[in-house]
């Protein structure tokens, strides 16, 4: 009846057009769902945009969510490029926050120009270790990295819970004390300087993936492990180094979030951003420039969703529903970019099949 035929060479324009169409279709489908739930979809969309861009303050809040999403996406992209399915960004971010908080709480009296670099380093080391564990298990034993990175997320999150309710608790409430002002990242143009780190990192990852030997080796390894071996690439070493980078970058996101936004460590400071970042990375097709766009779009959804709760008393979870619908449509659309459906004429008995 039907068969799928691979399109020989989908043009760039057609791809962009189809993807844009899929976003529109997703928004339309979500609007239907909202209407079915009894909400006015136009008002919801309007408030989401107003809530994320309406005032300077809201725009700041949106950008505060772009920064971790973008940094996490960059980290994840390094791993995904070699088809190492690192879905452990949430845990690597949590451990990065832990490392930074350790320095901030223990050496809070140090001047900022020593303390902040120390927090950067410790955050990246802790995130990096959390990234290297699944890499070592994979190259030494062949353990499935998707499942190991997933499990490590929950171990890291429980670790934060343990600290908050146990050894790092101060006073009667399960709460870790605020960092000293020395441990808080300074701001530039009203936004913590993490945005500059994110911009520099975007350029660095772009160059690393496209212009360096390591980036080339990661790409070859991603295409085919046997080709990589044949080309004399040290597969174990590249895997471990790339995951060290991936984890360290995600740890950096955790450091910046604890230092600049939360100003302390909480068990929930990652807030699922590590999982959302897997999606922003994938939607951008691992392109660092594209990730700026997808991170903005999803930060807008999260921030706009929060605004819905205050203005329309609609659960901020509406944003989650919208995220899901958009992903379903955009990823589903990728299939139709690559394939077209041909209807086969039914074969008549005795006749020629054509």
């Amino acid at each position, binding site marked *: 009846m039907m068969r799928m035929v691979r399109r020989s060479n989908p043009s760039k324009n057609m791809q962009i057009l189809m993807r844009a169409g899929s976003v529109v279709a997703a928004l339309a489908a979500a609007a239907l769902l909202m209407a079915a739930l009894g909400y006015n979809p136009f008002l919801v969309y309007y408030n989401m945009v107003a809530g994320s861009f309406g005032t300077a303050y809201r725009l700041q809040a949106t950008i505060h969510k772009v920064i971790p999403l973008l940094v996490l996406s960059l980290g994840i992209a390094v791993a995904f490029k070699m088809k190492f399915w690192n*879905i452990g960004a949430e845990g690597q971010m949590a451990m990065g926050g832990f490392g930074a908080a350790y320095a901030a709480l223990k050496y809070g009296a140090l001047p900022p120009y020593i303390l902040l670099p120390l927090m950067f380093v410790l955050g990246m080391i802790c995130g990096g270790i959390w990234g290297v564990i699944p890499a070592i298990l994979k190259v030494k034993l062949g353990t*499935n990295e*998707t*499942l190991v990175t*997933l*499990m490590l997320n929950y171990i890291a999150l429980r*670790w934060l819970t*343990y600290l908050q309710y146990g050894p790092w608790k101060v006073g009667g409430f399960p709460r870790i004390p605020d960092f000293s002002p020395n441990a808080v990242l300074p701001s530039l143009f009203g936004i913590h300087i993490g945005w500059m780190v994110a911009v520099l990192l975007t350029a660095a990852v772009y160059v690393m993936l496209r212009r360096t030997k390591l980036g080339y080796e990661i790409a070859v390894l991603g295409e085919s492990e046997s080709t990589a071996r044949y080309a004399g690439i040290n597969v174990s070493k590249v895997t471990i180094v790339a995951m060290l980078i991936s984890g360290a970058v995600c740890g950096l996101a955790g450091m910046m979030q604890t230092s600049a936004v939360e100003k302390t460590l909480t068990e929930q400071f990652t807030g699922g951003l590590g999982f959302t970042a897997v999606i922003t990375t994938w939607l951008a097709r691992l392109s660092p420039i594209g990730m700026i766009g997808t991170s903005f779009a999803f930060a807008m959804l999260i921030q706009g969703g929060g605004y819905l709760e205050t203005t329309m008393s609609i659960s901020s*979870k509406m944003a989650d529903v919208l*995220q899901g619908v958009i992903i379903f449509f955009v990823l589903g659309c990728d299939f139709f970019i690559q394939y077209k459906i041909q209807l086969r004429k039914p074969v008549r008995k005795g006749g020629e099949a054509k």
Partner: protein
Amino acid sequence: MSAFLNDAAVFLQVVAQLGTHILLGTLGGILCEKVGNLNLGIEGIMLLGASSGFFACIATGNPLLAVLVSGLTGVAAALIYAFLTVSLRCNQVVIGLALTIFGTGLSSIIGSSIAGRALPGSVNAILGTKTIPVLSQIPILGKMLFQQSPFVPLAVILSILLYFYFNKTNPGLNARMVGHNPAAADASGIHVSAYKYVHILAGGFLMGIGGGFFSMVYAGRWQNELTAGAGWIAVALVIFSTWDPLKAIFGAYLFGAVRGLTFKLQSGIPIFGQKLVVSSSLLDMLPYLATILVLVLITLRRKPEYKPPKSLGDPYFREDR
């Protein structure tokens, strides 16, 4: 001695209650993964099942209908996953994560009108604890299975049936072949996509009623993110049980036992005159640590029956053969 036996019996009864929704989620996950599809949407599907069932129960007052609604909601959510990953070959990990985000969100919105509401009394009459005479008096194990909500023995029976299905029946063996080597299965005349769809949807049904059991029977109330990560534990237990439905019972009850002990350990257990207090968050790490350990062990062992389905996570497309 008899007091101890009674304590043990009551403890196991609690263990089975704590483990049943996880067992249903795990069985659903096994169904999916056996045909080669890694479903990270279990948490979202269970939440959808939990909220929709609770909603239906309040709206209709019919608990059996509510359980059916839970299951069918799970099927509908699994259909999204199946269509995107099987027919449209999308990345299973990304779609699974998206399904969890979507399901968590939608369940909160469905649940906003039922949060804090009480269930009608008919629920307890039909789905609540049933004591089976004689059998429930069996020492130690009696209360665990025969003084329970019907869900508890049902989940155990389902596990046993699934074990036979995957090991002794032709469709079950075909399904494993689909998960192991879809191209070979296709060549031998097995309709790969149909097998994948049926198993993913059936898995969604089990995850859905797992959520329904949790909201309507175990918790008896709805709140946002009620399942609190049970779906992720299920993802872990699928591996921990090495894709074997019988071991899934063991895994889920072991988890229930750790949970049961957590309640006790938080208040402290006297040992040698000292009070041993273990942090519950450290205990909560155990299922995940154990899963990593199992993953390492199964990659070290050569026995093929402990290996994951070979095509797990890969899309299959016959045009690419």
